[in-house]
């Protein structure tokens, strides 16, 4: 079943086009990663999908509900953690969770039970009585994310939820989210700048730039599509003129002198290129200090897709 569907979605602010013809089809029960550089349109898409703002053009269907006709019905079924912090400064962490549950009309007994569970799951027990105003940015962020699990939902929007979290808290959150998707069939729409997070968590990923979707696929498929080109680095002792001259005949490689002399191969046939370069290094009596192959990761694909679109 389609959880989110958009057709030719556009949002224009004065002369700026923030979202430019976005078509998305997201299946239920998965973590969908939404990646893009700063100002690419990620948060605007989230605001459109959560009905906070209206599109200039196009159609949005969330959980099978038309967002133009029944925005409140959508909001009743979704959870939203926006990019900006949101908290009640005068309430304690515990009271924040409890009151948020009340706002969602959760029964008092269930509220109490969930508050305890979430305080434990998010490592907030020690700071449960501390006022939100007195918490660190990371602690506040944890409460903000935990709070959203006080109510039932079919779809959760998380806009850079790990900002300000330390590595341990970040991993704990990612595992918690995976667990939720696995156990309750929740769908998560997840934006982040930390690409290793997206690789760890997401079933499918879309890359957006300048308001347009550049690629949508699973992380492994994206690697297959964009990751043919492998990178091999050969750290060498010196760079002679003869070596420079001979390597200039191989377009797939480049020489960098800083911080140490290095031959870098970027090629879809890197193994063959490597053989040729090793032959040249041997002919020119160049000593190899180190050789490393860099596996294709999501970060490189992201940089390539965004770079190409720019």
């Amino acid at each position, binding site marked *: 079943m389609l959880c989110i569907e958009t057709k030719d979605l556009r949002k224009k602010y004065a002369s700026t086009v923030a979202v430019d013809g976005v078509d998305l089809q997201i299946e239920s029960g998965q973590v969908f990663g939404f990646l893009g550089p700063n100002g690419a349109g990620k948060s605007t898409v989230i605001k459109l999908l959560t009905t906070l*703002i209206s599109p200039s053009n196009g159609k949005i269907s969330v959980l099978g509900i038309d967002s133009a006709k029944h925005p409140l019905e959508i909001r009743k079924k979704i959870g939203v953690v*926006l990019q900006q912090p*949101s908290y009640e*400064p*005068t309430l304690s962490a515990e009271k924040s969770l409890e009151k948020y549950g*009340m706002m*969602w*009309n959760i029964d008092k007994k269930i509220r109490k039970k969930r508050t305890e569970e979430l305080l434990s799951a998010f490592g907030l027990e020690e700071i449960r009585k501390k006022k939100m105003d007195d918490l660190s940015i990371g602690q506040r962020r944890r409460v903000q994310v935990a709070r959203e699990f006080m109510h039932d939902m079919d779809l959760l929007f998380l806009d850079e939820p790990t900002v300000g979290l330390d590595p341990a808290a970040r991993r704990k959150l990612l595992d918690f989210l995976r667990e939720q998707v696995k156990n309750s069939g929740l769908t998560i729409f997840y934006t982040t700048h930390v690409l290793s997070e997206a690789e760890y968590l997401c079933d499918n990923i879309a890359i957006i730039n300048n308001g347009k979707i550049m690629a949508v696929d699973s992380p492994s498929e994206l690697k297959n599509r964009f990751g043919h080109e492998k990178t091999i680095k050969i750290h060498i002792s010196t760079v002679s003129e003869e070596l420079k001259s001979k390597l200039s005949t191989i377009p797939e490689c480049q020489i960098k002198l800083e911080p140490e002399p290095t031959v870098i191969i970027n090629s879809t046939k890197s193994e063959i290129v490597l053989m040729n370069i090793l032959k040249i290094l041997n002919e020119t009596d160049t000593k190899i200090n180190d050789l490393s192959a860099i596996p294709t990761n999501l970060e490189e694909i992201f940089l390539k897709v965004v770079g190409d679109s720019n």
Partner: protein
Amino acid sequence: MIRINPIIRLVNRNLTISINPGFIIWQILFPLIYIFVAGFAYTALIDSVPFGGKNLDYPAFLASGMIGFNIMNSTLISGIIIWNDRRHGMFEQIMSGPFTRTHYILSNIVTIGIIGLFSAALITAVGYPVFFDSVEFNIVTIPLIIFGSVVGAILFGSIASIISVKLRSSEGFNVIINTVFLFCAFASTAFYPVQGAPQPLATIFYLNPLSYLVDIIRAGIFGQVTDFVIIEMLVLVGLAAILFVIATKLLTKLDF
């Protein structure tokens, strides 16, 4: 599961985040100082104040004025809630939840209505021994006091809401709101009678909605409902309606 109305849920939340021991102490202590210190200290200067067909002693006059004053002060909460919600991201968060802007606006009005009534009841209880002699509570005057408290709360709550929507910086918000409320407090009939005041000041008194609120409450407490008080009620309702519409329009247009 019992389905509680979203407005009631938001009112519950508003009251929880707004009412704290500091607020309640301030709400009691501040008027008490005025009534018992200024009230009795000025008795030497102001022997009695004519009001309707009665002559009130100054502490009784001041205590009844403090009800309107306290209602106005307590409705500052409305502006503070909106301003804090915008500053701390809660406005956006609430709007992405199971609420509409109408829910949000109405919950604010109900909140300030409750706080206004609570405030009026508090000062009436505290001031009762002072103006006990002249009080005339009856079937007309009690609803009049409740009416004045609620309409006044909506009026000043709307003013505070308008200021909070228009200003983003904390300095700007505090300076403007304190200036407006200070002017309203002291250029009104809350502290002094209009009779005997210089003409320009008397005119300013009646350009100030707090004077209308205070006169209505006073009329209710001392049973002096005159034609002028009825006109004042109409003016207060009209002003409250206009300001409420403006505040609602501004809140509806708030962008994310």
